[in-house]
């Protein structure tokens, strides 16, 4: 069975760019890209993801809240916060919930590493 990764960001450009740069992984990975936490939760409810990568600041539910809920629903899903914020405050709160904290802009290689080595 293929592995699955879910990307959540309110910026379509970012999602599209992710889709493009991770094209090489499509053979082994099923990838979903959604624009909001609500859509993400819907998907998580129906499907098991190995990894979820989410933005922090989004309209409605933010990335941390999303990951907190994902942790309850699907504790084995690897939770990655890819945040444009740099406040230590966010980082402090995130520590309890996330498995990896990445700052935008990050090298796409960082995400590939997570996909390749951590799973």
């Amino acid at each position, binding site marked *: 069975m293929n592995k699955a990764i879910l990307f959540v960001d309110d910026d379509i*450009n970012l999602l599209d*760019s992710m889709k493009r*740069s991770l094209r090489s992984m499509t053979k082994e990975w099923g990838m979903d890209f959604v624009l909001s936490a609500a859509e993400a939760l819907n998907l998580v409810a129906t499907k098991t993801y190995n990894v979820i990568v989410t933005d922090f600041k989004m309209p409605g539910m933010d990335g941390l809240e999303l990951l907190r809920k994902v942790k309850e629903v699907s504790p084995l899903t690897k939770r990655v916060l*890819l945040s444009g914020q740099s*406040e230590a405050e966010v980082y402090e709160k995130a520590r309890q919930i996330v498995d990896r904290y990445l700052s935008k802009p990050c090298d796409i290689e960082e995400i590939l590493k997570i996909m390749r080595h951590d799973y």
Partner: protein
Amino acid sequence: MTDLRDSTGKKTAKILIVEDDQLISFHMKQLLETAGHIVTDIVVSGETLFEAIDRNPPDIILMDIILEGKMDGVEAAERVNGEYGIPVIYVTANSDPGILRRVENTFPYGYISKPVNEYELLSSIKTALYKQRMEKALLESELKYRLLFEHMFDAFLYLQVINGPDGSFSDALIVEANEALIRVLNTRREKVIGSRLTAVFKNMDRVKNDWRTLFDKVATDEETHRFKMYFKETDQWFGVSAYSMGRGYIGVIADNVTKTVKYQKRLEESEKNFKTANREMHNLLSSIDSILIGVSTRDEVTHWNAVAERVFGITAVEAIGGRISTLAIGWEWDDIFEGISICIHKNDTVVLRDVPFTNLEGGNGFLGITINPIRDDLGILNGFLIYGRDITKRRMMELQLLQDQKLKAIGELASGIAHEINTPTQYVINNLDFLKQSFVGLMEICLRYNSICGKVGSACEYKSEMEEIDNRKRELDFEFLLEEIPRAVDQSLDGLARVSKIIRSMKSFSHPDNDNKVLADINKIIADTLTISKNEWKYVADVETELDEDIQEVFCFPAEISQVLLNLIVNAAHAIKEVVDTGGIEKGRITVSSFRENGTVAIKISDNGIGIEEDVKQRIFDPFFTTKDVGLGTGQGLAISRSIVVDKHGGSINFQSTRGAGSTFIIRLPENQEPEEMKDE
């Protein structure tokens, strides 16, 4: 007074004769009228005498003792004395001792025995007239003095000394007292006259214990003494003068000086109050922790307190009385003069916020000065009060606070901008990455097509299409694109990596947690600071770093340490630029290293710039000290840096510098410094 002389100068008198023997009275009348006197009447009884006196008052009465009627001559004379005061001369043959005694008690002017002898009669008249004249003069004189005595404002006492058993003054009998004294005592005359002094003035002994000694001296040595007495009964003060009035008698004049004494007492009291107030004012002024200088309108220093002494190094003795403008006060005189002129002009207090001054150590500072006009009750300008405080420290703190706020604002802005930039940067990187990878495949395909095209050559049926492709390839410079597109993408990715790095470095300057120190990697702070400041140094210097990877994270305020490093790096770049500008070298070198040393983490920043001049080495950490041109430096960089390192982190900042060779600054931060709230627990 009756004129005893007529127009010819003869002594003549009006005489009334009281005589029951008509023969004798006729005889006397003849004698008298012959001598030029006028006999006004002749009466035979005491009862008729007074009617005659009233009818025509005589100068002299010749009185027989045995008369008609009940009243005898002595009795009549007594009444004359009491009611009229007319001199009486007795004319009688009576020599009864009892009657003679009575006669004497009526103070007669003369006594003539019968039979009347002309010479005796006339000489008696003459003597009586003289005596009467003298008595009248005396009486008038006494009346005059009595009037004065009664009407004078000063109280007067006439005392008769009563000596004690030892013969010295013991008390006095009040023989006479004037109206003023009676008023003072608020009593009746009869209660005073004839009483003892101590009985009237009951508080004498309490007033002045040695008054007896004084009165004794007045009475025996005829000295005059003056002293002050208080009469409790009427709450009055008297200036008393005691005079000798002949042996055994003392005259006392008491001048009511109550008003003077009370006024003087009030004066003394207000003087005392004034002195107290003055002393309190002096203490108050001395205790003021500010410079206080009084200046008169003539430019003279009138007040110079201890703080002024301390701050300007001029003692009050040196300053007071001198012209202020001649004193070597290290303040900006133009500001002060302008302030004073505005103070005069606007007639109001002038506040000068930042007056630059040079302190005794030659350091720069600021004074906050208030100039107050001093006016008298009429509003006329008397001078100025210059009140000043050394506000250097406060200004430093304000500037540092301002700097902190600026940094915080920059941090917040950087953080906000970073967020806005980070997401697009992320997808531009992603897309470039995608393009880079895709282009490799795309290029491979292109090259393969290219090779097939070469093999097919111009023989095939697609000749015209092939030619078109060839033309297009030449137009686009196909080989160039193949080579340059991957490089363009790579360089773009490189540029974006640098943008990302700068944005991340800027975050180091933000204050995510302003109140507490955090564990931070000093090497990262150094790297970030170098990234941020690159524009400052890259044209004049190369930067080398020698960072010890083993140094531990230190508890610190990372943004503030960054600021210190930024200051030092910018200063190093400026020092190098001076050498570069003079053509000394083409490019300088800044070396930044970190290492552990004796429980501290040290950061060393060396440059091969111009170096610091010997004579300013002592002052480079002084606030507001700068060697840079106006507008280039505020003179607060090193002062604030020192404050951050020393005051906020308990570290040290030192330097070595050789003019013409370069400078090295070393910052040392305690390695195991813990955040304050942890220390508290």
